[in-house]
């Protein structure tokens, strides 16, 4: 469950917008991403070609599935 909503983000057809904060030093397909509530987690970004820090990604069960057109980056 996320902190602010009683919904499971892992097993339903649910995904969260997250901002790519930084890549893992040892593994370029892993990145630390930050959710709208400040939650940080390690995400596999291997399915997003040329993902870059600052981009908003749609994340589900530890994997980024899509690039979002705009979003959390604007929030700072």
């Amino acid at each position, binding site marked *: 469950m996320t902190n602010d909503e009683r*919904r*499971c983000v892992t097993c339903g057809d649910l995904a969260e917008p997250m901002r790519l904060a930084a890549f893992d030093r040892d593994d370029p397909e892993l990145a630390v991403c930050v959710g709208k509530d400040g939650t940080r*987690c390690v995400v*596999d970004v291997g399915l997003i070609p040329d993902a870059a820090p600052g981009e908003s990604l749609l994340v*589900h069960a530890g994997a980024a*599935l899509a690039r979002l057109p705009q979003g959390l980056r604007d929030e700072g």
Partner: protein
Amino acid sequence: MRYVDEFRDPGLARALVGEIVAAVEPGKSVKLMEVCGGHTHSIYRYGIDDLLPEGVELVHGPGCPVCVIPMGRVDDGIRLAREADVVLACFGDMLRVPGSDGTFLDAKADGADVRMVYSPLDALRIARENPGREVVFFAIGFETTAPSTALTLQRAKREKVGNFSCLVNHVTILPPLRALLTSPDLRIDGFIGPGHVATVIGARPFEFVPRDYGKPLVVSGFEPLDVLQAIHMLLAQLAESRCEVENQYRRVVPDDGNPKALELLAEVFELREHFEWRGLGFISHSALRLRDAYGDFDAERRFDVPGVRVADPKACQCGEVLKGVIKPWECKVFGTACTPEHAIGTCMVSSEGACAAYYNYGRFAREKAEA
């Protein structure tokens, strides 16, 4: 917050509801099915059901992956969890799904090493940290979740993690949708399509729904305005005698999905001949298993998995709920013998299950209206 707030704007929602009301012919009723459990949750959480005119009824479909796991697969997982050297990792909602002899949580209380994880990557980390133990990830979910499992398996193979395996229960959305469409019980005028599954597979694979069955489908996002707009788009198609796939969630869903994810799924998984869906029975080519190239990571090959079929409890009407034949509150045990705390049926377990969503958000409004 941008991106979220703009899809929850009350003024825009009121305007859309007005357009929905205007789009329904007086005296006519329309039944729309949301296929995805995420939509069911949004509909109840934001009270969308209560905003709609009498002539528009939403029916909840089979798109909650926890809800469709049959009891036999839960029993298989619990059997593995009880093995001495095994750590069984699974998502949180799965912990409370009843098998024939209790849940994963019950097994944990009895001493089994069952751990909740937020992603398959977490399960792989547990395997790396416990080289002397066998770590089994109980993998569930639709095409949305399968890529995460596949990425993790690729990584496990690359890193030669020898003590990690998956009990794969991944399912695919199109076969049950086709099964529903051929069901004589079904009286549905249109479908709200699953937005995040479509992020992976695209909107195009849903084209058989209008083409073969004459029903419109609109792929939708999950915010309140997304769902309201999808409903309006379906009503517009019906009013204009159009029948096609439309993509309301275009900001995220490309028509062809995520090609890298599809390539990955094809590399790691193949279709099972048959798979049992809770309440829906066996559906051909509706689930995934690991290809031989990933056989070393297949818990079904590595362990003695009984694979026994267990019938659903007689009192439970999850099957009818999943097919949209009855509403959650019409089930004989809803809210009495079956509650989120003590679930009999899987629809009451996951927050995406129609029964749990209705129990948590919808029942009070209904009880008040009936009083």
